[in-house]
């Protein structure tokens, strides 16, 4: 962690508005990016990110510098995303909303379908997939964010690959 960042966090923790504002502005983009990949829809991603920002304000005081700030932050966003996931009505149809990616609505739809399927595998799979394949985290880093073992991350990814493979095998071209 750069000393500049650490300094800023400490100041924000002491109540420095300026420092906190800078902190949020700096990290908004990456939080949003993760949320978007997770939920697949712009509006939902904005909601999640906003919730994450509010939560950041409330709980920054609890950050103890024991882990990297980004790890901590991602954990926070993942939790917000999970809250959103749980609050969402379960039977919400996938293809009712506006496209996410302007240039290729197909791939956006595909992503949402894939994510829905991964979501159906159980808790923890979506986050793992997004962190590792979307954000390019190593398994260890993803494990740190999700507070699970590295082997669990590897296992989840393996499972995702296996199941997606199997579901596509019978020739249903997506």
């Amino acid at each position: 962690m750069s000393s500049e960042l650490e300094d800023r966090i400490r100041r924000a923790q002491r109540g420095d508005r300026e420092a906190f504002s800078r902190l949020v502005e700096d990290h908004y983009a990456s939080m949003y990016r993760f949320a978007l990949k997770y939920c697949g829809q712009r509006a939902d991603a904005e909601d999640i990110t906003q919730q994450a920002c509010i939560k950041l304000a409330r709980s920054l005081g609890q950050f103890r510098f024991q882990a990297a700030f980004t790890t901590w932050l991602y954990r926070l966003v993942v939790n917000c995303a999970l809250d959103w996931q749980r609050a969402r009505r379960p039977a919400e149809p996938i293809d009712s909303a506006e496209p996410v990616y302007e240039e290729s609505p197909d791939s956006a739809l595909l992503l949402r379908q894939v994510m829905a399927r991964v979501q159906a595998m159980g808790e923890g799979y979506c986050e793992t997939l997004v962190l590792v394949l979307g954000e390019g985290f190593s398994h260890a880093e993803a494990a740190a964010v999700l507070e699970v073992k590295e082997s669990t991350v590897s296992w989840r990814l393996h499972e995702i690959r296996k199941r997606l493979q199997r579901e596509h095998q019978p020739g249903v071209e997506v």
Partner: protein
Amino acid sequence: MNDEELKQLLSRREGAPAEEARQRAVAAAMAAFDEEHAHEKTASQTQGNADSERLTPDRTSQGSKIMNLFTASSSPLQRWVYSGLASAAVLVLGVFITTQVPWQGGMDTPPVNETALKGGDATRAARDSALEEAVASAAPRIELQVEESSRAFSGSRANVVTPESSAPRPKLNSRAAADAATSRAEEVIVTGMKRAPAPAMAAAASPLEGIVAPGYQDSGRDRFTTADANPVKRVADEPVSTFSIDVDTAAYSFVRRMLNQGVLPQKAAVRVEEMINYFPYDYPLPTGREAPFSTTVSVLDSPWKTGNKLVHIGIQGFELQGAQPRSNLVFLLDVSGSMNSPDKLPLVKQSMALLLSRLQAEDTVSIVVYAGAAGTVLEPTPVKEKQKILDALNRLQAGGSTAGAAGIQLAYQVAESQFVEDGVNRVVLATDGDFNVGIHNPEELKGFVERKRDAGVYLSVLGFGQGNYHDALMQQLAQNGNGVAAYIDTLGEAQKVLVHEATSALFPIANDVKIQVEFNPQTVSEYRLLGYETRQLAEEDFNNDAVDAGDIGAGHSVTAIYEITPAGSDSAVYEPSRYREQAAAGSGKGSEYGFLKLRYKLPGEQDSKLISRPIRIDADPADAAQLREARFASAVAGFGELLRGGKYTADWNYSDALQLAQANRGDDPYGYRAELVQLIRKAEVAQAM
């Protein structure tokens, strides 16, 4: 869909966050931030607020530190050690739970393998170290178990073994869990050896070594009834001693099994008379036909107490002459799941096959099994169709629960259907001891066996296996069924009981044999009977023919030993009485220690016959052979007394027993006596541990 596609899908150039949404979020965050800190400010500015003094949980607690050990430890070594420890703990817990679940038998795989796998992330290192610890602590575990069980049975602190050992014990909080874990782990190790074929011949040659531990085995549930050692009695108070003879040998085999495992047996498992009677003695054969057996009496010095004498009473039954009586045997075999181990059902099959070799062509054999339900496996079949019988035996498989009573009823039914007049009608029960289902009440079962005995069908009991051996019930059933209770731990023992001594086990020559000795107060001040604690009779029952007692088979030899203190010897344990009248001297019987009386019934007869003879002070052993036999019997008796705690043997110890046994082995054609010598050595080792 492969990884690349997924990655591509996820990392597609996404739309940049909308500026207004971003600002909304930042504003919301700032509002929350302000709220948070405004609250903080007002809180800290309040006068007299003690919040800052108060201990709040908003600290890194010990708990979270511990939780982070597995994930956030800086060094991989630390992580390894902690997660290894955690895995081992989970393993131990799992094992503990599995051992506490009472298994229905029939388990093929040792449960620990499963548990180890279920341990999931248990690292190889953790498992290896757990096994190492298990090996190191296996011996102390068994000792503990023995100590615990003997404590449970005798109700007093057992000084059989000291549980201390230099072997490292696993550092686990729960001792019980640790013990359970080691017991399971031990099985894994032994089952590992199972891959190598265990040849039956090796098992026969060296008892136990060839026998591998079963997949599932109870432990520490062997049940024995505790009988306090016969006390020293004053002749002046109680000059008459009465007991029934006992030809069982089960105690010796069980003791041997425990000693071969390197532990001392529980005290209650040691019955001195059964140890003595395990060995054949070279007593003179009965000369005439008027009595079915001969009695030999000899007196020699007590090896463990100077001044005391040992009175040996030897009884030798006659050998069968001419044709063997026809027999009708019903093998009643326990095939419940608990019999599923190499030293149980397979040994039962081998034993029964051995017994077949001693039967004549026209004798009949039937096989009844009991488990979940009782059933006849083999209708009465003449022995000449040996292959048919062997096939039926080999088809048997263990599984299900134990309903012994129903099986017993069926077996008696089969036996009665083939009843042979003037022959031997016998049910041979082979079991590891449990009668879980059926007639629960042992008294009822005994009553049943007793009634059938009076109708002419006898019962012999062969005990197998250990860990859940129900010795007490076996003994009672055999006693009530006019049969022998033998414990078969190896093929060698099966050969001894069912081949070499088959005639003794199958063909009784005298029933209800009782011994009564009246000591002469003039010459003997105190006496004590070694063993036969469970066979004591009331004095008045000696002449009561309705009272049941032990039976002698063809060729059986039975030995009883009294330790006496001659009058005037300073080795007495009782102080002389100041007021009691001393026995009048010089009444003409001063040359006798006492008077021996024996009562017996010939098979099928209701009235008993009496043999009597005095025990003379100068009844030295007739020749060198008799002296040797008497000394060997003393050595066995002394060894038994030592195993029971050595209350009466003063400072005589295992090496003295060893010397005495070693010096009087005789020609020992079957090597039984040589084996005893080895057992004494093993007891010495086990005691030192």
